[in-house]
């Protein structure tokens, strides 16, 4: 953000001093650029091993991620927060579909969803500028058919506008 002040004056260098009201023009120009910042309360989610019969949906640790999105954009402009997994959950050659990870959401504009490999899923949408916070609570669908292993995937969050 920068502030520009233009001062425009009129100086009369010739003739007698004016006796009536004097006019001067001052133009203030404020240039506010578009800015955005996205932050998460944690950049790691861990799902511990559990018995599928006892814990069919394993909650993440931490239980919730707080999402903070700060945007300065055109009035009524839509701001979209999406998430896309880098691929399926992978442990060496073994894979588990990323769709086994789903979330519930809390906060204005945030919606629940399920990860889809190769596709951006909407986490939240807002309009206009503002600072928004909300939480996502992830769970892993724990099935007997998952081969044992330690699986990883990167969730790429993107804040965008049309």
């Amino acid at each position, binding site marked *: 953000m920068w502030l520009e002040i233009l001062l425009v004056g009129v100086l009369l260098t010739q003739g007698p001093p004016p006796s009536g009201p004097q006019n001067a023009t001052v133009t203030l120009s404020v240039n506010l650029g578009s800015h955005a910042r996205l932050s998460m309360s944690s*950049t790691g*989610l861990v*799902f511990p091993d559990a018995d599928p*019969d006892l814990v069919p949906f394993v909650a993440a640790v931490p239980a919730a991620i707080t999402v903070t999105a700060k945007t300065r954009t055109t009035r009524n402009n839509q701001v979209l927060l999406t998430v896309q997994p880098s691929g399926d959950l992978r442990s060496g050659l073994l894979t588990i579909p990323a769709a086994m990870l789903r979330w519930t959401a809390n906060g204005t504009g945030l919606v629940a969803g399920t990860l889809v490999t190769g596709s951006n899923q909407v986490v939240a949408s807002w309009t206009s500028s503002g600072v928004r916070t909300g939480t996502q609570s992830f769970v892993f669908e*724990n099935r007997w058919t*998952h*081969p044992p292993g330690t699986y990883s*995937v990167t969730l790429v969050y993107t*804040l*965008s506008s049309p």
Partner: protein
Amino acid sequence: MKKTVSGALAAAAVVVFAASADAQTTLATQNVNATVTVGNQARITVTGGPVLFADSDPDLVNPIPAGAPVSVAARARVAPTQQLNVTVSANNAFFDAGTDTIPVTGLLWTVGGAPSFLAGAMATTETNVAQWTGPANQAGTQAYTLANSWSYAPGTWTVILRYTLSTP
């Protein structure tokens, strides 16, 4: 001349609008790493017992069907190449231990449910009830029958069937 300029402006406006409708402008990104630990787990559940065979005339009912089938649910989270077996064995070679007239080998079963389940005959050694490879949740049923014979000693006799889920 004025008309031409107006046309050019209109065209430019359309182009800009179309571009903004197609593409999203990325404002910020953030990565979160997710790690899932999936450990080995196994469970076998057998329901439907006790298996009862009613007294019957050997000339009229042979074999004797059990009152109800046995349900077997075997769940195992193992490596994709790991073989799994569900076996059953009797704790005695004869229902009537001591008089030894009713052999457990007369106890046969047919199966329903998952294709991994196998028909068979009872023994005191481990006999396969189901076999498959990799992590799975297998559910099936066993419908038992007991061969009937005039040579059986009268009485109420019991054997215990032990089910085991294992890897070779």
